[in-house]
């Protein structure tokens, strides 16, 4: 475990060495941002709306009673969405979508000697392949999380309108009650950390692939599994430290 951790840290150090040519790296960062950000929009939108809606209905069900105002469901749905559902569930889904793609892309480049070709040319392969992905991940995951929060809360509103469990007006009152800006900061810290973990862990798994197609698949699976475990661990640590 310590050997792998050391290798991972050394790879990250190599990844952030001074680039050979900034403009080439910059265009790679832009390309990765499109791939990670735009490419994940649909899946994030779908899961956010449904999770927001389901959360609101469940909270309304659990708190139904004469002593609890209906608007509380809106408040709880908002805070749960901002603090936990949007950052964590989005990150877990993104680990599956972009993490597996990163690990298999870099792993395939390794087994087909494309990484060797980069090194022969004098290119710092970790810098060229990994750094743009990490930068793009740390930029785009927070944006996706913001979008997820908005859509999750909207999903809750739609659930109110459709199900009638709570009146939409009460839901909106609940959303506006007792808002603490710290929750958004926590969500952003989580999103940036998750973006880093997904891209760096999966890139590490792909970079040290050896063998053939079977091993590329294994690297991809390992990347997603380790990313998910680390996301949940980081989620706990950040929550404990910031709240």
């Amino acid at each position, binding site marked *: 475990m310590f050997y792998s951790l050391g290798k991972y840290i050394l790879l990250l150090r190599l990844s952030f060495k001074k680039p050979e*040519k900034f403009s*080439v790296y910059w265009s790679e960062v832009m390309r990765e941002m499109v791939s990670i950000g735009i490419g994940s929009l649909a899946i994030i939108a779908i899961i956010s709306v449904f999770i927001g809606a389901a959360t609101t209905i469940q909270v309304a069900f659990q708190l139904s009673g004469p002593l609890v105002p209906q608007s509380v469901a809106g408040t709880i749905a908002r805070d749960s969405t901002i603090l936990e559902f949007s950052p964590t569930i989005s990150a877990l889904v993104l680990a599956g979508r972009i993490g597996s793609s990163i690990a298999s892309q870099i792993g395939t*480049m390794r087994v*087909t*000697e*494309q990484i060797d070709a980069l*090194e*022969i*040319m*004098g290119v710092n392969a970790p810098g060229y392949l990994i750094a743009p992905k990490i930068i793009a991940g740390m930029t785009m995951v927070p944006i996706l999380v913001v979008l997820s929060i908005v859509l999750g809360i909207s999903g809750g509103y739609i659930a109110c309108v459709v199900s009638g469990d709570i009146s939409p007006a009460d839901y909106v009152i609940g959303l506006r009650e007792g808002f603490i800006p710290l929750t958004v900061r926590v969500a952003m810290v989580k999103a940036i950390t998750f973006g880093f973990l997904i891209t760096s862990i999966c890139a590490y798994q792909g970079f040290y692939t050896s063998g053939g197609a079977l091993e590329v698949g294994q690297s991809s699976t390992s990347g997603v599994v380790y990313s998910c475990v680390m996301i949940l661990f980081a989620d706990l640590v950040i929550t404990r430290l910031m709240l």
Partner: protein
Amino acid sequence: MIEVKDIYKTFGDNEVLKGISVKFEAGKNNLIIGGSGSGKTTLLKCIVGLHEPTKGQVFFNGENFTEMNFEERVPIRTEIGMLFQNSALFDSMTVEENIMFPMNLFTNQTKAEKLDRANFCLERVNLKGKNKLFPAELSGGMKKRVGIARAIAMQPKYLFVDEPNSGLDPKTSILIDELINELTDEYNITTVVVTHDMNSVMGIGEHIVFLHQGQKWWEGSNHEIAHTDNKELNDFVFASKFMQAAKDRL
């Protein structure tokens, strides 16, 4: 010129290279031949720095490449062109982008200049007009030729070629060999080819190094190879009845 001095390479308990010393001269087709597992590709990878030798040194024009760090190696690496066994073209880039890639990173040429050079390289390997194709749209022989075009894009002093004929039909193999030969003469490149293709050995082998069990077993030219009494080399080169008959006719 490239000089390899007493190279050893061990993977775990397996000693693949056992003290190989050899000089590869400029303007010559230097061939490394040997059976499967003899250490040909490992030697090539030790020379270009993809593997670090367990012991020994590699000199490029007198400069000790083995003792350099990554940054110190970059100027030499920009003078190296390499064609990999599976071509190793970047899948996400077009043919043109593949060829322009090293120029984008290591030169300050304008886009038009880089495009001119890419077109020249493509024309040189008889692939004019294939600029916009992706590697997945190319045949095996075309991929090799694009690999060569990319390797010569930076006008290298050293050209390394790993199994240029693997997976190719005999006619295409000869075309690739001729191309390597022409480029070596034209630009006075130090070319090192790893192969076990006998057509290449007899056709372009100006300087041949035969590896056997991780050691340099024999060294000479394609003219000398037909008259050697080295048993292992004869067993390797003239293994087929056809080659044996060809040898007898010499």
